[in-house]
């Protein structure tokens, strides 16, 4: 049982108890504001990764956090909404020629 894959809640709890000194010191300017797009089938892993990132970035102390270079650095989530509609038509030819718009939008 102990070896099961942790749920998001358990992972968050573990985060609280994890050892100090494991934090990375990152004092350079971010290359851009961060966005994560976990595709279908990768959502759970993506949410866990997101949980770590939001927590670290909230706790990370930087005197430059208010500067323009750090715009969008601290956010409640980095996951960008993304929808990839599945095939909608039942005819093969139709589905091959029907547009399947894929869209991404950052909040």
């Amino acid at each position: 049982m102990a070896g099961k894959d942790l749920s998001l809640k358990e992972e968050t709890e573990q985060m609280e108890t994890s050892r100090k000194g494991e934090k990375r010191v990152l004092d350079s300017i971010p290359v851009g504001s961060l966005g994560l797009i976990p595709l279908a089938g990768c959502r759970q892993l993506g949410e866990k990764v997101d949980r770590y990132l939001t927590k670290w970035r909230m706790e990370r102390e930087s005197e430059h956090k208010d500067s323009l270079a750090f715009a969008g650095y601290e956010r409640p989530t980095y996951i960008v909404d993304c929808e990839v509609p599945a095939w909608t038509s039942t005819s093969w030819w139709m589905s091959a020629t029907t547009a399947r718009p894929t869209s991404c939008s950052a909040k």
Partner: protein
Amino acid sequence: MVDVCNYSQTYKLFGEVNHMSPDDHYQNLKRVIAAVGGKARRITVIMPFLYESRQHKRSTRESLDCAVALQELVRMGVDNIITFDAHDPRVQNAIPLSGFETVQPVYQFIKGLLKSEKDLTIDSDHMMIISPDEGGMKRAVYLANVLGLDIGMFYKRRDYTRVVDGRNPIVAHEFLGSDVEGKDLIIYDDMISSGESCLEVARALKERKARRVYIFATFGLFTNGLSEFDKAYKDGVITKVFTTNLIYQTPGLLERPWYWSCGMSKYIAYIIDTLNHDSSISDLLDPVDRIQNAVARYREEQAGANQETSAE
């Protein structure tokens, strides 16, 4: 982020429910990149199981799917590709000017092992690393070196006079290495597909009087289901199987007493955080110090526990 192995995702076509194949996932990845439409500052693809990574070399007239896919992604504007334990890291030769990292989850395996088993004696008299084939030797050598253990290897003895199903049939799995009797063994491989070969290796080790057999594999696909593993566990052939949460794990697998899932989300978060800061990830890719610290802590804990019991 994309998991090309997740067949549990479905879509409907002709009124029939289909399971998503790696091709479907890969196609969706490209759609998303296309939808981003050049607006992103930098695109990093995290593809734990590298798409078509097993189709990496050409021995006769065949398609080099992995190389084509990598070039396709780079042409679409992808700057970095992060993958885990790529079957053959040399496929990066297809995109020599782009970022390509193949990350080894060795530390996470060791952490899992030390967490689940409390009575290991980590030295070369009590433990050994086993590579199930020639291809996995590099991986096994690394693990053996960081833990200070010896190594053993299996190779397939084939009958080169005959061809069955396009291949020379395997006559036997031969073992190279020192005596395994009474030792705890770790079989280290990149993936469990059907699991047939690693169970065969485990059985061969048991015949040589190994004590406990553990299996580390980055990707646990279990294409033939779990019953063979249940049986091997019941017969005492295997003690525990460690794979990562990098790819889809069935609920049944997660419930098995012989299974241990190694979480990789924190590691991935470290990599993303660092890359976004334009800092070096070299220290993340080289976990030697972290492994040695974990082993040292484990030994301290053991020493502490022993003192307690002797005090009683």
